[in-house]
């Protein structure tokens, strides 16, 4: 994101709603992290509050994706075989394009538990059909299960950072006209 001209401020996982707003961000990136998302309910609460603002663009990857899923009301579960490696094919459901991605996760967002009226499936893993990405249908939130930053791994997913920045810019434009 820095390559794309963003200035970044990194906050700890336990940062509160107020801590985050104090930074006055144009967008919030939910990073990856280890393990099961279920016990990280404090973060889910914070995300849910941020979502209620309806104006702050959110982009989550890996654990960040799972937390976003939970904040949107979905369940998460442990995969029988976790995804590890730099060769997982993921299809972008909007375009049909396949991206080779880096993956390292043992848990997954349960697509069936999502409120389909609000949230769309954007990416699917072609190995086992599991959910790999979601986006809110009307609000500026989206997330992917794989690692678009890919270090190490293929750079195929980097377009998502462009998508996030476009979302941030659009939101800023909207914000300024509202003001």
């Amino acid at each position, binding site marked *: 994101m820095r390559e794309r001209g963003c200035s970044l401020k990194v906050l700890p996982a336990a940062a509160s709603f107020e801590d985050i707003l104090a930074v006055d961000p144009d967008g919030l990136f939910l990073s990856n992290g280890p393990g099961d998302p279920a016990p990280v309910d404090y973060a889910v609460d914070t995300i849910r509050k941020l979502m209620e603002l309806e104006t702050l663009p959110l982009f989550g990857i890996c654990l960040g994706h799972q937390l976003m899923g939970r904040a949107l009301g979905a369940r998460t579960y442990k995969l029988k075989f976790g995804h590890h490696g730099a060769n997982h*094919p993921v299809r972008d459901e909007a375009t049909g394009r*396949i991206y080779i991605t880096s993956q390292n996760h043992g848990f997954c967002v349960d697509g069936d538990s999502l409120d389909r009226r609000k949230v769309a499936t954007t990416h699917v893993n*072609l*190995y086992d059909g599991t959910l790999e990405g979601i986006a809110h249908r009307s609000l500026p939130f989206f997330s992917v299960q794989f690692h678009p930053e890919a270090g190490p791994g*293929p*750079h195929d997913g980097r377009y998502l950072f462009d998508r996030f920045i476009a979302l941030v810019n659009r939101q800023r434009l909207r914000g300024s006209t509202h003001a």
Partner: protein
Amino acid sequence: MPKRTDLNKILIIGSGPIVIGQACEFDYSGAQACKALAEEGYRVVLLNSNPATIMTDPDMAWRTYIEPVTVDVVECIVEKERPDAALATLGGQTALNIAVEASKRGIFDRYGVEMIGADLAAIEMAEDRDSFRTAMAQIGLDTPMSEAARSMSQARDISRKIGFPLVIRPSFTLGGTGGALAYNAEEFEVFAARGLEKSMIGEILIEESVLGWKEYELEVMRDLRDNVVVICSIENLDPMGVHTGDSITVAPAQTLTDREYQDLRNAAAAVIRKIGVATGGSNIQFAVHPKTGRVVVIEMNPRVSRSSALASKATGFPIAKIAAKLAVGYSLDEIPNDITKKTPASFEPVMDYCVVKIPRFAFEKFPGSDDTLTISMKSVGETMAIGRSFKEALQKGFRGLETGLAGFESPFAGSGNPDYDRIDVMLLSRPSPDRIFHVRDALAAGMPVDRASELTGIDPWFMDNMLEIIEMEREIVAAGPEGLSGELLKRAKQAGFSDLQLGRLVGIDEDAMRVLRTKRGVLPTYKSVDTCAAEFEAVTPYFYSTWGDEDETRPGGDRKVMIIGGGPNRIGQGIEFDYCCVQASLVLRELGYETIMVNSNPETVSTDYDVSDRLYFEPLTLEDVLNIIEREKPRGVIVQLGGQTPLNLALDLEKRGVTIMGTPPSAINRAEDRKLFKELVDKLDIRQPESDTARTFEEVERIVERIGYPVLLRPSYVLGGRAMVTVWSGAELEGFAREAFKASLDHPILIDKFLEDALEIDVDAVADGTDVIVGGVMEHIEHAGIHSGDSAMVLPAHSLGPELVVSIKEQTRRLALELGVKGLINVQYAVKDGDIYVLEVNPRASRTVPFLSKATGTPLAKIATAVMAGISLGEQGMTADPACPFFAVKESVLPFSRFTGTDTVLGPEMKSTGEVMGHDPDLGIAFGKSQIAAGLDIPYGGAVFISVKDYDKAAVVDIAGSFEEMGFEILATAGTAEVLARRGISVTSLPRLDGGRPNILDYVKNRSVALLINTPSGPKPRQDEVTMRSSAADHAIPIVTTMSAARAMAGAIKAMRVRGGAFQVQSLQELFQHRQRGFNHENRQK
């Protein structure tokens, strides 16, 4: 996207004969494409002139045309068959060039044929180096500085601009023919002129040299939805400057960081998208500067390539098959990965092992040629090895090369370990087949890795690994046989050491070493090549050995047969034997057996994982094969189909209790051992040229005195006539005898009376112990004395009377039954003055089996295999000898243009790399087609140059006469001219090369001569003859070096002229309509 339903019939263009740079990897890719398209319900129309291929088996396509791969023939077939589409991306550069030409001539447009795979625009952008460079610049990728030239003056201007050293590459050729590196203006003149001539469009590219840069290749696939996946990365151990076909290569890339690799991956995806190869595989080459890291794109092949075949075998991902499916409209995610069945093909294979490919060379067959490795490919085959580490794979690769090495040993052993700074640095800086061994010696002598790396351009990481092998050797030597603990042995095995190699180090033999190792509990384990590093279960069993703790093989049932393949291709042992092995596997599976294939050659169809039930990609050494046998416990092993390689293992395997199927190994010995052979023919009352064996030169002299000159000298137990020579006088005897002793290793050399001007005959037959069927009696066009692998052959034998044919068949039957042959047998005869002499008996598959099978519509290798499985000829319904209802001519293809400076003359040592077949009801046309298929421009007029040795002068008169009658101008050297003039032929006499101008070289260079007829004066030809012949070869002017070939050529020209150069094409299915045979169900149950 589902497959296209608007297509019905698809034309696949094959790659023609095996030549250097284009070998059986295209049979592998073409065969996969045929199968994949047939599986999808398309009707495949196939064109390929090479009868030795699996793809030209009539079962592989709906219509199979074994016809010359030329634009005219493509037009004939398109007109006749009206295909909807043409797929030219799986037949190498030949198919691509032909398709481009056909497309430009409007043939495809005229008949509404769509080019699928890659279209004309994409091919041209990738192949025309100027447009390629521009395209790369547009996507922000760097290429070496370069400019195209269409004339010498333009070329000189460019050379001044860029500066030396310079690379000169002709546009539109295959395997880098004519490509060269010039260090100075003098070399530049020569190479640029040659390049302009070799290019199909008279254009060369002059490039900044990236000599010494690191070289990488990425195998990329793209579908119609613009999805791109990288199948494999390959790193060349030898840096830029050596053709990738001549480099030792390693997969996956070993010395890149993830970031560097991802940069290449991104660049590769950008390249394939820019060039616009919409569906299929491409190979993209990069050079990376070792210090600055600057990356340049070298080239892109908009087609499946040699490296794709290697990548397929290295990863288990069938690139050609998937490419064919993408070409008919599927996207990657719609095609399942064969290996896992459950996951899609839209992924990138992962390797949890290391693969090393090592090329095999044949410089010893081309005396006088320079063995420096350049950007023009010269190797004739390759072996691939798989191991858990680079060290293990490298050592397995060297023993898989079958050149006598048991691992990464130095063939120069015994020279001691000199002080490293006394080592000739040229041996390290000049790339050659032996450089890797000099590197080894230098490292062993203490040369620092950095210094060796600087001299060779080989990455220090590889050097470190080589050094570790050397250090481990020292540890083993120090330990001695008693000190070899289980722990040390296991480490050694994991570093790739073979039992033979370990035994050599500690001074015990291979068997003792095997016993010791087994006692220490160090045993091999097998791992699978599964595309996914065991992430998913592999359905397809494709294995390699290593020395781990866990074995991934599953034992299977008990009806198992093992087939040992032919190993790396070499001159004399190539695709023909792979054809036989594949046929065997197919028929055994039909008969209800599980088949186990063992081979080490990545180019082959036999190492396609769906040809057999289990594939072991292993070196074909006694140890490696025995290990698999111990693991699999097959009922029997087939050794008679893979050429000399498995045959050499037969006795050793039998001695260790392995069941050899078919002909017993003792028969091999009886046929090879001259003394036993003599007893055999005497017993059967069959005539043989006088012969004897010798172990010393004194014995040779005594024998020659007895039987008289000329004699034929040859080593025993070699294939392809290695070091075989006709000796005409005492002056030459000692030198040639010495060569023969050297090639014969421990065995005696053979001396035969040479039958001058005898007609040579080749026969292949199948026997079951009671009955024999003779597949065909083939007549050589060249007389005895030319190796059967280099000679053109005609079926049926047209100049033998029916009685002689009957007696030849009869003798063959007696030989087969007496030897107890169960399976194939090949016999070579000479016929002189109505007498039949047996020259050689080989109780095994021969090079001519596929040709005969295609020409008679009879699958001889399958029939032989069924015999080995216990089904008699009678039970198979084979009661009569098959017939060839037309004339079929097999012509050999020679690699002389690769070996500048070598003589182009044929002799008892085989030199050809491949073959083609021409067929027609008329013999002249059949021969003519074979010549066109072999790449010759048949001259219909112009000048013929004739210069023959005294012996041939009488015979040449008729030939010259028929050329004169056809309106050719006759040129001749003084001696020949005199004879011709005396017989009333009008002839222009040319001076000898040193006797004035213009001489024949001027005619050759000006292309004002259309054909050369020149018979060599003796086994050690005069220098001026060699100059003339090699110059003709360089200028692609046809040259015939035997009287019989000249006669056949005259006949062909005459026959072709009558029809204005046009000829009919016919598919095998039309020729053999009534002969679609298979095995019936009763036999299957046996």
